[in-house]
C-alpha cells in the first residue's frame, strides 16, 4: 500500500482474568495515515489504545509502535508518540507558556528547542497575545488547538487522539480536522478514536471494533460499498448490531 508501517499489531490478546478485552487483533498503520479507531463503548478501544501507547502490556501477541516493542520497550514508545484526550490535558491554572515549558520539560527537550518550538507554535496558531494567559481564560476551541499542538511539541512520529472533539461545536471540530490533515500531510501518523461517525469519513482508513475484535477495516469508501450503506454510521450500526444480538 503506501509508505512505511509505523504501527504493527499481530495477534494482540489482552485478558483481564477470564474477560478478554482484546481478542486477536491484527492490523497495520502507515506513516502519515489518518487511522480511525471506532467501536461502541466497551468494545475494547480504550484497552487497545493503552497497549499501543505503552501504558499496559499485552497478554500475548506482538505490538510494534514507532519501531519499538510496546510491551517491552514502552519507555521508547512513549518518547516517540504524542497523546491527547477528550479533556484536553492542559493545566488550567497555568499559562500557555508554562504548559509548553512543562510538556517540553517532561519530554526531555532542551530549553533552546522548547523556545524554538514554542515560537513556531505561537506563530502558527496566531497565539502570541495569549502567551501569558492562564488556560482557564481561553475559549474551548483555542484550548483544543493548543492541546493538539502541545502534544506535537516533541515532534512525535505518531499522535494518539482519544475522542479529541468531544463537547466542541461543529465549526471548531471542522477547524480541528483541518489541523489534523495538515499534520498528517507532514508525515505524522494520526490514530484517532471518535464517536462522531461523520468524522470517521475524514479518515484514510477506519477500523470498527466489536466485543474485543476488529470486525471491519478498510477505507470509508470501500466499507460503504461493501455494506451497501450511504455513510459510515449505517455501516457501524449494521456491523455492531447483529453481533450484539447473538450474545
Amino acid at each position, binding site marked *: 500500500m503506501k509508505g512505511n508501517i509505523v504501527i504493527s499489531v499481530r495477534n494482540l490478546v489482552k485478558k*483481564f482474568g477470564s474477560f478478554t478485552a482484546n481478542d486477536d487483533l491484527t492490523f497495520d498503520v502507515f506513516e502519515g495515515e489518518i487511522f480511525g479507531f471506532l467501536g461502541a463503548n466497551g468494545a475494547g478501544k480504550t484497552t487497545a489504545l493503552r497497549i499501543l*501507547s*505503552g*501504558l*499496559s502490556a499485552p497478554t500475548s501477541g506482538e505490538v510494534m509502535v514507532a519501531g519499538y516493542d510496546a510491551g517491552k520497550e514502552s*519507555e521508547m514508545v*512513549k*518518547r516517540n*508518540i504524542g*497523546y*491527547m*484526550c*477528550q*479533556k*484536553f*490535558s*492542559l*493545566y*488550567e*491554572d*497555568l499559562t500557555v507558556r*508554562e504548559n509548553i*515549558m*512543562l*510538556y*517540553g*520539560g*517532561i*519530554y*526531555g527537550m532542551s530549553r533552546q528547542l522548547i523556545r524554538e518550538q514554542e515560537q513556531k507554535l505561537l506563530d502558527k496558531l496566531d497565539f502570541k497575545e495569549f502567551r501569558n494567559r492562564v488556560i482557564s481564560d481561553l475559549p474551548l476551541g483555542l484550548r483544543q488547538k493548543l492541546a493538539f499542538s502541545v502534544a506535537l511539541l516533541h515532534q512525535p512520529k505518531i499522535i*494518539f487522539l*482519544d475522542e479529541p472533539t468531544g463537547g466542541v461545536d461543529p465549526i471548531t471540530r471542522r477547524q480541528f480536522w483541518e489541523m489534523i490533515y495538515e499534520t498528517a500531510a507532514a508525515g505524522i501518523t494520526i490514530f484517532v478514536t471518535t464517536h462522531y461517525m461523520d468524522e470517521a469519513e475524514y479518515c484514510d482508513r477506519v477500523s470498527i471494533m466489536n466485543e474485543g475484535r476488529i470486525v471491519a477495516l478498510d477505507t470509508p469508501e470501500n466499507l460503504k460499498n461493501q455494506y451497501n450503506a450511504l455513510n459510515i454510521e449505517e455501516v457501524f450500526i449494521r456491523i455492531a448490531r447483529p453481533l450484539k444480538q447473538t450474545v
Partner: protein
Amino acid sequence: MKRFLAFVRKEFLHIFRDIRTLIIIFGIPVAQILIFGFVVRTDIKNAGIAIMDLSQDDVSRKLTDKIISSGFFINTGHLSSYNEIETEFRKGNTRAVLIFGEDFGRDLTREGKAVMSIIADGSDPNAATLITNYAMAIVRDFNMEIAGPALPGPGMIVPGVKMFYNPNLESHFMFVPGVITLILILICALMTSVTISREKEFGTMEVLLVSPLRPVQIILGKVTPYFLLSFINVIMILLLSWIVFDLPVKGSLVLLLAETMLYILMSLSLGILISTISDTMQQAIFISFLGLMLPTILLSGFIFPIENMHPVYNLVSMIVPPRYFIVIIKNIMIKGTGLMFVWKETLILLLMTVFFISVSIRKFRLRLE
C-alpha cells in the same frame, strides 16, 4: 532528572497560584497555634466565682480574700441564699460558688473543725474539675497557715505536688506538639491525595502516564513540594511558639527535625495511598478528613489522654500514626529526652511508612495493568 525538575516546577506553580492551597499550608498552622495558644486554655485564669458567706466571720472573710487574690479567680458576686445559686450559674459568668454555712465560724471555734462547700458548674466537666482542684488547694494551704506547723495531728499528711517539665501546667505545652502533629498530617496527606486525584479528575494523569516520566517520578514530583513546604512549616511553628509562648525545644533540635521528617514521609505516603483509592478530589478530601483529622484529634492523645479511653478505642488508637508522633515530639520538646526513649515509636512510624508505600505501589501497578 531534568524531566523531573520540570515537573516539580509545575507543582510549585500549582501551589503558589492557588490562594486556598496557600492558606491551608501557611495560614492554618499560624491560626491554629494562636487560637490554641490564646483562646483554648485548659489552665485556669480568672474563673468567675461567687461567694455565699452566711457566717460572716473572720476566718471565712480571710479565706475568701485569699481565694480571690490568688489570680485564678475573680469575684462575680455575693449571694445570700441557696435559691440564688442556680440563677447565678445561669447568668453564665460564674463557674463556681463558694459557700460558708451560718455555723461555719461557730463550729470552727467550738469544735476546731468546720465544713465549707464548693459548688461548681458541671456542664463543663473539665473546667469544673480544675476549678475545684485549684480552690481546694488554696483551702489546704490556708489550713496550714491557721493551724501552723506545730499541729501535726492525725490525718495531717500533706502531699507536696510539683509538676515536672511544666510547673505551671501551661496548656501550650500540650497544644504546640499537638498542632504540629495535626497540621503535618493534614497538609501532607490531604494535599497530596487531593493533588494526585485532581490530575485523575482532570484527565491530565493520563497524559503524564503516557509521557516518558516514570510513575515513580510522577509521584515523587507530586510530593516533593509538600515535603519541603511542610518542613518549612514545622520550623515556622517552632519559631512562633518560641517567640510567642516562650516554648523552647528542650531536647536535640536535630533529632526533633529528623523525627519530623520521618513523620512527614509517613503522612505523604498515607496521602498517596488515599489517592490510589479515590478517583475524585471530593473523595480524597472526604477520606482525609474522616479518616485522618478526626482520629488525630480524638484518638491520638492530642486532647484526650489515651489512658482514659475505653479499651476498644485504645486498641483503635494503636493504628493511628499521630499517636506515636505525639509521644515522640512531646518527649523531645518538653522532656528533652533522646532517641533512646522514643526508638519504639520511631520504629513503628518507620514500619507504617514502609507499609503505606508498598501498598500504594501495588495499588498503582494494578491500576496500570
